[in-house]
């Protein structure tokens, strides 16, 4: 077996050195009855070729977004990723390295994390960022938990603009902590005004911009309302490419910003693994969950980086830790950082402009179709389309036509009749003019 280096001779020699007669002697502590009932009806090993054939078959049973024009968003976005990126993250020194607990031999990872933390802070308009979380949804839950710690309050208010899965994950994460999570009913036609709802018992208000239905929102006055009541404002961003041309959450007064970094990291991969970005104010840094890389010097006075403020974490603080997180999303965070480095200021702006231009182009042509209404006056690259028929039905018809034409909102809110005809449509730089053309033709047909 190709992953196992020992010969039987070597195994015998090693047993002799150990002083054991058989390998089984080393498993003597396992009760015999347990060993005897360890019978498995499972397949034997396969060659690399056989594994490839088997998995390639499974892969071929899927329609992938390279084979069909893709207009799917709802929290995951398909962008083009430069070839250099995948080459870089496949370097063994990045791919197969461990968490950088030994800083002298992990400066590659640590410097990259420090650069990542800086990029995330710059992109969100915040002061500090951590080394990443599992994904945007869990980052959102961690932000709510942190707000409760900082304000010492036990209530969280979540806007209808927040991705429904982020709401569910936050509710679930806080379920047994005594914190009350209130979720407002989503309104696809506009941006809910939460300023009236901010009260002195709130730890935080959580909003998303661009919102789940695509709405861009200026949260400055909401931030002021929160701060006046001693509450924090948490802003979620599921499409961080938007930050290329829209006002930054930090500049609008956000206290914590969480993002799903998948769209920039390029790892669409059926929804996982992604990467959660987490940024906040410097004054809250000791309440931040997850790892942090910090700059320092070595004994020769040379600059280097280490994991720091570790006493917040589970391996030291144990039950008093800021979170139980251990493994995060290292390689995906690296992918995010590499792409942002390749893009730079100019490239990031260009990417965002291109996304918006294509989305506007499609929106204008969709609006021209009878019976179709776009509910999102201000959007980045995704908008909500109200159709004269069930959105689920339309999406299925489009799929049969070889077009992944949008995500029905009812997939997330199955019991809300208001949303039955609502389709979330995203457009990125990967959509060509013929994609847009094909989509419109198929849509007109489906609606006829």
């Amino acid at each position, binding site marked *: 077996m190709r992953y196992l280096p020992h010969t039987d001779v070597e195994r015998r020699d090693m047993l002799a050195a150990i002083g054991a007669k058989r390998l089984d002697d080393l498993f003597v502590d396992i009760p015999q009855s347990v060993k005897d009932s360890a019978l498995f009806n499972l397949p034997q090993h396969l060659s690399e070729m056989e594994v490839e054939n088997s998995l390639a078959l499974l892969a071929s049973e899927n329609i992938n977004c390279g084979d069909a024009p893709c207009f799917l968003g709802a929290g995951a976005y398909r962008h083009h990723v430069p070839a250099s990126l995948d080459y870089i993250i496949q370097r063994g020194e990045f791919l197969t390295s461990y968490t950088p607990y030994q800083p002298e031999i992990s400066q590659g990872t640590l410097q990259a994390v420090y650069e990542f933390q800086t990029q995330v802070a710059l992109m969100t308009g915040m002061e500090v960022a951590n080394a990443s979380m599992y994904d945007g949804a869990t980052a959102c839950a961690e932000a709510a938990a942190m707000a409760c710690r900082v304000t010492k309050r036990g209530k969280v208010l979540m806007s209808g603009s927040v991705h429904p899965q982020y709401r569910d994950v936050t509710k679930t994460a806080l379920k047994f902590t005594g914190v009350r999570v209130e979720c407002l009913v989503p309104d696809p036609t506009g941006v809910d005004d939460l300023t009236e709802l901010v009260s002195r018992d709130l730890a935080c208000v959580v909003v998303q911009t661009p919102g789940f239905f695509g709405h861009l929102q200026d949260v400055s006055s909401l931030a002021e309302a929160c701060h006046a009541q001693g509450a924090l404002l948490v802003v979620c961003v599921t499409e961080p490419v938007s930050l290329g041309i829209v006002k930054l959450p930090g500049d609008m007064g956000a206290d914590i910003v969480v993002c799903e970094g998948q769209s920039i990291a390029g790892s669409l991969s059926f929804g996982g693994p992604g990467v959660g970005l987490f940024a906040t104010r410097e004054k809250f840094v*000791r309440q931040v969950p997850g790892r942090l890389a910090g700059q320092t010097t070595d004994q020769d006075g040379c600059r280097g980086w280490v994991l720091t403020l570790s006493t917040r974490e589970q391996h030291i603080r144990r039950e008093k830790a800021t979170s139980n997180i251990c493994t995060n999303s290292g390689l995906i965070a690296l992918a995010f950082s590499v792409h942002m480095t390749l893009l730079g200021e100019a490239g990031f702006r260009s990417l965002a402009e291109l996304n918006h231009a294509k989305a506007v182009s499609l929106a204008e042509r969709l609006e021209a179709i009878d019976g179709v209404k776009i509910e999102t006056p201000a959007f980045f690259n995704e908008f909500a389309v109200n159709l004269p028929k069930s959105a689920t039905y339309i999406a299925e018809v489009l799929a049969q036509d070889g077009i992944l034409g949008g995500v029905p909102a009812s997939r997330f809110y199955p019991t809300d009749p208001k949303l039955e005809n609502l389709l979330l449509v995203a457009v990125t730089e990967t959509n060509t003019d013929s994609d847009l053309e094909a989509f419109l033709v198929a849509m007109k047909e489906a609606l006829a």
Partner: protein
Amino acid sequence: MSNIKYTEEHEWIRLDGDIATVGITQYAQTQLGDVVYVEVPEPGKHLTARGEAAVVESVKAASEVYAPVSGTVTEGNRVLVDAPETVNNDPTDEGWFFRMTLTDVRDLDGLMDQSTYDAYVSELSD
């Protein structure tokens, strides 16, 4: 200093008139290593004996500092916030954590005196 008492958690408490000063001992600071961060309580905070009063963090550990007896905080040592290394350099004097009034002076009787504490520490080190 006959008016200094000690706890099993390695806090010292020194009464001067009505106000007691609390810190951690030489043994405690050695165990912790380089102190990187300190959180001291706000004036007015009520403390119960053996309840959490302050937090001290080193690179490898984070510890609570407990109130040796019940009372009310009069002052936290803000110097420690900017210069946490003071705890390592001078734990028994400049490195004090907070000052408090006592609910009952007699509570001090239940704590260890110098020689008892010294014996306690030498037992731990064996």
